[in-house]
């Protein structure tokens, strides 16, 4: 469509001329579900960080007079088999889920991203070695690898988080490599090279920023997976140990009491699902935003 090739100033294009806040406002007007999702995650994160202030009860405080209650005004999420307030336990549990997701994505993203950048830029032997190692990680089923790591390092928050991180690395590495390989061929990289730029400059200043957008989308996918995986490990008894509150353990224990109170397992499940869906929605919206601009420049080039 040659009509689209030379229009210099459509509103999305003049990014630099407007403030970040205004741009975010425009973006969320276009991506309403994502705006709602961001809102939910902000509320959840604030609650998790400020748990001691926000939570109505101590998550470990037992009340044997009110066990396995359904939702009520005093206990909006009900209570568990020891009469502990589920809302407080879900809020505290959010700390674990969100921390696992944040740590796993941050570490796996930087390790995998750098490995992929190196593998894509250097290609030859180094690149091949890095990628074969990633293939090896990818070949071992994730949950099995996590169980192995938990078996070696013991149960608890850190072993589970390390396991989740290790599992998330290969996806970042492969994506980063593919993105770097295609960006490397662009003429602006050659142009910067002929301006005298060295390898490090080309890798980190020229190629990486332009190869980044698929990784940011991948980060949202990885965050959702990390939360699920941590919950699964806790559910299997390999993650956070009772009495510490966690969404996974809550669901694991709650399933034994499904007949007495469906709310016990259901409420943490709903929060978990909502969190994962929110992250996923944001990821899709980001993909549309960045994928769209990539399409634009491709269409321009086709002219």
């Amino acid at each position, binding site marked *: 469509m040659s009509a689209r090739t030379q229009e210099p100033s459509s509103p999305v294009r003049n990014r630099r001329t407007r403030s970040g806040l205004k741009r975010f406002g425009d973006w969320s007007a276009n991506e309403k579900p994502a705006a709602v999702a961001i809102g939910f995650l902000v509320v959840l994160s604030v609650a998790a960080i400020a748990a001691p202030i926000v939570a109505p009860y101590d998550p470990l405080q037992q009340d044997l007079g009110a066990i396995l209650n359904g939702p009520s005004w005093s206990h909006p999420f009900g209570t568990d088999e020891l009469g502990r307030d589920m809302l407080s336990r879900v809020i505290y549990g959010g700390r674990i889920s969100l921390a696992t997701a944040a740590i796993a994505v941050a570490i796996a993203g930087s390790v995998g991203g750098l490995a992929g950048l190196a593998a894509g830029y250097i290609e030859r032997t180094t690149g091949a070695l890095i990628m074969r190692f990633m293939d090896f990680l990818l070949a071992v089923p994730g949950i099995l690898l996590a169980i192995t790591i938990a078996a070696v390092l013991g149960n608890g928050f850190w072993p589970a988080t390390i396991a989740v991180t290790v599992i998330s690395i290969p996806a970042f590495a492969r994506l980063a490599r593919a993105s770097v390989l295609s960006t490397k061929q662009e003429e602006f990289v*050659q*142009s*910067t090279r*002929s301006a005298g730029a060295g390898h490090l400059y080309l890798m980190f200043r020229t190629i990486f*920023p332009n190869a980044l957008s698929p990784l940011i989308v991948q980060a949202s996918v990885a965050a959702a997976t990390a939360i699920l995986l941590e919950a699964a490990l806790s559910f299997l008894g390999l993650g956070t140990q009772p009495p510490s509150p966690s969404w996974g353990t809550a669901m694991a224990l709650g399933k034994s009491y499904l007949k007495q109170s469906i709310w016990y397992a259901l409420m943490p499940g709903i929060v978990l699902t909502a969190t994962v869906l929110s992250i996923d929605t944001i990821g899709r919206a980001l993909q549309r935003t960045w994928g769209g601009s990539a399409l634009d420049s491709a269409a321009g080039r086709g002219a």
Partner: protein
Amino acid sequence: MRSADEALLRIDGLSIEFGALESPVKAVNNVTLEVRRGETLGIIGESGSGKSVTAMSILRLLPKDQARVTQGRIWFDGNDLLEAEPGQLRRVRGKDISIIFQDPATSLHPSFTIGAQLIEAIRVHDGRISKADARTRAAELITSVGIAHADERLDQYPHQFSGGMRQRCMIAMAIANQPSVVIADEPTTALDVTIQAEILSLLRVVQRETHSAVIFITHDLRVVAQVAERVAVMYAGSIVESGKVDEVFENPQHPYTSALLRSLPALDHRAERQVSIQGSPPNPSDLPPGCSFEPRCDVADGRSVCTTDRPPLQDIGGGRTVACHFSGETEAVAVNLSRHSMQPQAIAAAAQVDIEPVLRVENLDKRFAIGGGLFTGAKREVHAVNGVSFDVYKGKTLALVGESGSGKSTTARLILRLHDPSGGRILFGGLDLAKSNGRQLRDIRREIQVIFQDPFGSLNPRLTARELVTEPLKIQGIFDPNGPDHVGELLSRVGLSPSQWDRQPAAFSGGQRQRIAIARALILEPRMLVLDEAVSALDVSIQAQVLNLLADLQDELGLTYLFISHDLAVVRQLADSVAVMFAGRIVEQGVAADVYGSARHPYTKALLAAIPGTDTQRRAPGDDVEVTEARIDIAEHGCAYRLRCPIAQDVCATDSPSFARIEGTAHDVACHFGAVPVEVGAP
């Protein structure tokens, strides 16, 4: 039934919009066209003029969810195609009206054989024909488009054909059902100039035989001059002028047509300055209320009627129409299409002989290894650059000319050391670049800068114009934020106003991006610029602006240019000397006027003769063209060109010709029979 004069296809008041309803992009505005049996109608326009959108709408090929036809009708065979039922439309598509697309590399299905695709095209509209008969018909078809060994060729896949051959297959497919209208959308734009000449004459033969009407869409004025009888000029979605090609080109009535023709680079001489059209085409989502061309027009001269009233398309007699309030004032042009006055200027060479060259390339060699991996088959070598030598002198321009695959771009990349040479020397500033590394190479890179072809890919999309121009200074560690604003000066010098400096490349048009690329290359104050097809992706009017800018900068700063191009007309305007490359070797080099005026190598002559629209190629009434057979291109032994060469003899198959100086000139040619002058234009 129908008389010959009656229109076969008629587009009536067509308007098409894209994008959101509240801010539509008006791609086509009130276009009326008709084409008669046996006639070729050329639609010409720059990118974004709506020419392709108009053509696609005829077969309703525009994406339904994006394009809206807001008014108009397309009459074909008594029906309005815009109202046609899906079944009816399917019968028309491919049977009555067929399309040839621009890029033969992507318009054939890669995983079916050519035969299967042709047979399908035949049988889908004629259910009764047997497979065997359809195959016989397919073989006839590809023979008729000049492909030999039809039976074998039918069983091959598109990737086994060269670009020109694929386009021949596309044409065979388009005429398989003897359509009454063939739409050709830039059918030769992706092809080399000699292949383009073959395809254009093939289209003529095919049209003569099938007596179909052809709608030929192109941005290339020379091509239109060659193939079309009538032409419609489009600008910003509207037709601004139409009429018989000869009349429109000799006596244009619309200022845009006139300016477009004048901005076409001449072949017969080097102009002092290129005529360019100021500014760039309007944004189709924000057209001016009056005449769309008014902001760039030199006839309008600020008269209010041009800014307030859109001029209607008026019939001015003789089958011509024009949309201009003051068409009588349009400047007459002597069209640059002829080249009778190409005179050799052998004397000019003498001056530069004893000056030290800025760049001297000696026996440059590059072999690429293909395959040799575990799964990629046997290792082969491609000899991309084979013993290339030339000198470039200070303040002068050397052009490397050749078709795709000739090794001209690889040569440029070797000089920039984006590839490592396999052999030879690149002498620049007392150093051999072929052997330099690390620090030395980084310093020398300041001195040689490059501008690439693709203005959409050659700028980092994340940086602003100012950052892009500043970046080389930072890389070289010589950026001084408190010093005088050289970056700003340079951006102004290449024609960008300060309000644009903080925008990213996406906010600029192709010509503006190329200006940024030029500023970026010049900020390090290099001695030499390598221009790798630097203006090839730009529209004619913009191309002229950039050529002027390059010429001015060369005069002011004493720059030396190495200009890589396939476009002989552009080379004529910029180059002092020319080196013609074929299959990795230079086959002819010398002063531009000599090479153009008295070409000695048969390949150079073929290149010059293949330029469309020149006297030798002009369409004469009743002329007789034959289908030329598609050729194998490059010979492995002896002279690489001998398989295509009209004067090849036995010696060409055994001995590779060496360079010979033509007596009394600085004009070298690598041909066994090249030292003898041959009449220009001889076969």
